[in-house]
């Protein structure tokens, strides 16, 4: 083994490496002759073409098996998530921190809300129909235009005081801000088992006086006729129903942690891993 242990000098190594890259005696480039390189490359090109073909074929047949309207499984979507608008995140999650007298501090919230509600103005919603029934809006067949199903209208004026129409600052300068609660869409999900689910917000630590709240639409309910959702392809113009919450008595200069839950059968909000399932939590602080 003695021979193997002989340390090669650096120049010897370089020489060996050069010889490996190009060996003039055998005409080998990196250990193969040129023609050999061509052959092996051709083989691999062919191999990968076949493999790509097989993979494409598999993906193609996978797509063929899928239903274009509803996914095969909704294993991870048993209960909808709930989000808040304006969705401005700070270090500790959702934070609504502003100074009532400083326009710059709350303007971003107002802009966000306006932007968000622009999808709910009458022009945006004109394709949707007016619904009046207080029941689930089941549609077996595709009666809508272009083989779609109808979606119910939800316009921002349904949020009344929080629509941003009468009060374009959503009550922020007054220290009584409007926040909007949105429930995530899940295809064929029927919340509330016949009773309209409603939003209920509470302060997490009731050190302060109990929250005085005003919900829009009344009672903070999501009307049942917005459910079930039939998916993007069936209901291309569907928009989520919203609930706006106006906070009337937020203690000034103090941080308030608020949890807004959507209450209704089939909506769980106790998943320890998922803070946004069935509820949304946020902090508020309004300074003078």
């Amino acid at each position, binding site marked *: *083994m*003695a*021979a*193997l*242990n002989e340390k090669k000098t650096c120049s010897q190594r370089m020489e060996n490496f050069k010889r490996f890259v190009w060996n003039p005696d055998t005409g080998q480039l990196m*250990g193969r002759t040129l023609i*050999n390189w061509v*052959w*092996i490359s051709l*083989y*691999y090109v062919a*191999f*990968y073409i076949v*493999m790509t073909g*097989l*993979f494409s074929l*598999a*993906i193609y047949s*996978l*797509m063929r098996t*899928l239903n274009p*309207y*509803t*996914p*095969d*499984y*909704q*294993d*991870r*979507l048993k209960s*909808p*998530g709930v*989000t808040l608008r304006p*969705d401005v*995140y700070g*270090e500790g*999650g959702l934070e609504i921190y502003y100074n009532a007298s400083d326009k710059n501090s709350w303007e971003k919230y107002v802009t966000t809300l306006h932007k968000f509600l622009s999808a709910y103005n009458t022009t945006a919603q004109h394709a949707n129909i007016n619904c009046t029934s207080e029941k689930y809006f089941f549609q077996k067949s595709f009666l809508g235009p272009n083989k779609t199903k109808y979606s119910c209208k939800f316009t921002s004026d349904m949020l009344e005081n929080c629509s941003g129409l009468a009060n374009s600052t959503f009550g922020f300068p007054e220290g009584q801000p409007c926040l909007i609660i*949105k429930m*995530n*869409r*899940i*295809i064929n999900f029927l919340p509330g088992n016949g009773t309209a689910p409603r939003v209920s917000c509470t302060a997490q630590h009731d050190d302060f006086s109990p929250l005085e709240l005003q919900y829009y639409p009344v009672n903070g309910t999501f009307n049942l006729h917005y459910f079930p*959702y039939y*998916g*993007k*392809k069936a*209901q291309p113009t*569907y928009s989520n129903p919203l609930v706006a919450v106006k906070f009337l008595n937020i203690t000034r200069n103090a941080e308030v942690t608020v949890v807004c839950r959507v209450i209704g059968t089939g909506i769980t909000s106790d*998943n320890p*891993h*998922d*803070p*946004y*399932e069935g509820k949304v939590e946020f902090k508020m602080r309004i300074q003078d």
Partner: protein
Amino acid sequence: TSQSKQMGLQEVIPGLTSARAAEILARDGPNALTPPKSTPEIIKFLKQMVGGFSILLWVGALLCWIAFGIQVAQGVASAFDNLYLGVVLALVVILTGIFAYYQEAKSTNIMASFSKMIPQQALVIRDGEKREVSAEQLVVGDMVEIKGGDRIPADIRLIFAQGCKVDNSSLTGESEPQSRSCDFTHENPLETKNIAFYSTTCLEGTATGMVINTGDQTIIGRIASLASGVGNEKTPIAIEIEHFVHIVAGVAVSIGVLFFIIAVSMKYKVLDSIIFLIGIIVANVPEGLLATVTVSLSLTAKRMAKKNCLVKNLEAVETLGSTSIICSDKTGTLTQNRMTVAHLWFDDQIYSADTSEEQTTQSFDQSSQSWAALSKVVTLCNRAEFKPGQENVPIMKRVVVGDASETALLKFAEVILGDVMGIRKRNRKLAEIPFNSTNKFQLSIHETEDPNDKRFLMVMKGAPERILERCSTIMINGEEQPLDRERAEAFQTAYMELGGLGERVLGFCHLYLPEDEFPDTYPFDTDSMNFPTSNLCFVGLLSMIDPPRSTVPDAVSKCRSAGIKVIMVTGDHPITAKAIAKSVGIISANSETVEDIAKRLNVPVEQVNKEDARAAVINGMELKDMTTEQLDEILINHSEIVFARTSPQQKLIIVEGCQRQDAVVAVTGDGVNDSPALKKADIGIAMGIAGSDAAKNAADMILLDDNFASIVTGVEEGRLIFDNLKKTIAYTLTKNIAELCPFLIYIIASVPLPIGTITILFIDLGTDIIPSVALAYEKAESDIMNRRPRHKKKDRLVNEQLAVYSYLQIGIIQSIGAFLAYFTVYAEQGWLPNTLLGLRVNWEDDYYNDIEDSYGQEWTRYQRTYLQWTGYTAFFVSITIQQVADLIIRKTRRNSIFQQGLLRNKVIWVGIVSQIAIALILSYGLGSVTALNFTPLRVQYWFVAMPYAILIWVYDEIRKLFIRQYPGSWWDKNMYY
């Protein structure tokens, strides 16, 4: 008289006083060899912690902690994932390190228990009285007494000796007992008769002597320290594994760095890029492989131990397999290590005797009257005796008191005649002259057992020419005939022929003393020799040899077909050595040495073309004068070589010569002085029975039955494990691509991560472990003893073909199969493949809790994460399913699986079942433990990758088919690993 002499001696020499002895002991230290310096345990342990892939994993762990530190400072919620991953990686390194250390320690412990000796006692004269002390307490100047059977406790100069003989074979290699006396006969301490050496054995007689050297100062001690001076070389398998680690680490680091650069230039954050780098390292490193290799080697070591090869160093298992030259001792290894009667000559004819290990009868023609006379001489003119109480022991195994030739004759007679002791009793011995080197004969006078025959029978044996000188007649067919010139020539021919076979020949003669001259009461006096010792009647010749073990010729021919050169190195006479070499096939029947050719052609040796001679018998004296180049020339030009009359020091030269030819050399040895050669050899093999402790210490392997044939079975096992390790590594490397591709696609296509780092560890250290060990149980594909030993620089464990085939072909198929499962899971849950592309940033945004999928549904972050884990599980399961196919195809490299048999290796099935069971447990049992990132998977997702598993099998069968069909073709060269 000897009693009184000894008494007198004791009075004259009172020995040391206890006080003085204690003083010297304090100065010189105990009389024991310093054990070879062993590496401290902690160093051994730490070496395991940084060896192999450990460094790479430590780097990974360190990067994890750095990422953790940065993320904590930034307040990232998932920062702790990195901390845990770092801890897991560190744990992996530490646990595999502990495992490897434990395995090493276990095999070392076997050795430790093996070499443990009972403390030796010595009879020493101190304070004027004899006492037993532990040999370690001896000091220079002590007077010690030794008797037959004792081990010499130190180097001793004899001041009194009676019939003392020592066995110096462990020191000098001379197998003949050496007589010892008080006479100074030679300048060289090794040659002079009045010194007995530490660790040699006193065979017979008694002696008293003064201790002149103790402990490491003894001759043995000096040789032992010489042996520890010869450095330990790296074993071939260690070099192969290092080579393999370099390849994998090279791939890991270069891909890691490449993608780090790509990620940074794709505007990923540096921190994210570091996390990618960790993933790539973890995916590339087969964490469990080195542990698997260790287990496979120790399994083979166990198997070898069952076949009488005890392996000290696990890696030596494979070294034996790559052996290309075996330098073997003769005595005891190739031969039975006991003199046995091989031929007889009487009635002008040579008869062969059975020399096998378990002889119970002899089948040569025993009807002649001459045989009756010869057998009588053989029986009576013999001083050897069986030790009592061995009636039930087979004759060949009985213990005999007496020297080697007499023992051989006694056993020979016992086998044929039975009850030799009874015959001797009936033919009472009246007088006897024992053998001595001046007379060169042994003689005794007996009464005969025939009550009517009052004559005395004088029997004599000795060196044939001396015996013949004393004879005037010769017995032919029971008749005494005059010993004329013709008869004498016949004798000479027979003597030469037997001598030419390398056998020790003894002549036998007898004489019936006339009744009238030698009446009943005749006083025989052996000093004055008042009886005739000439004009005797020659009866016959017997020749003895230490015969080859019966299994050896077969083993040698196996070595030959396996391309292993067997070189005999012996201290014996060239003729004997050559004869044994011929009879075991080390020199094959039709090959000639230069001398043979010269003799046949009748030309001087110098004129013979050396290349014509396949065989060579080299004398130690010739070797002494040879230059390195000349020795190299001999080793290259001759395929059958015998070194005779070599000193153990020359063994080292021969080993070095073989190693210059790039051979992997196995050396057998038993003596202390063999230890440097054993150390120098790539694999030193010590004899378990005859071997000295020093030899066993220096060796890598111990042959428990001292049988050469066991080496050959060891070679077979060693070759098998090399092949099987190749399979194991190919199996393990394949899935690394399937683990790596997800990260590459994740970085480039920005899809949700298909498989997590933790999940990868569950494959590497979970599902894959038992299957890769199972490949160690795979049977050989063809007769592995019919191919040449691997060339240690060309036939690598991991060659280009293996890496390329595993990485770029099977690995790619596996990745595609696993990605199909990944896309299937996502698509069926609402995320179509086109939606996934470029989704990564939003997907991983903790504040984005209403991302729309392809169907318009909105997902929170956690819902997505949970889906991501489902993706991990599906990817994991798909790799596992395809690894089952990979495991099956790796059973063979050339043959079809159906030729090899699917069910022959049951352990493979244990592996497959374990693989699937572990996957089931992880998915369904531990699916709810969020830290592990597994989820219970829908049943059909287990089958998504199945077609690809079948594709792997079919593709590999086609590959093997072409390899078998077109050997030597482009396909064979590029696809056979």
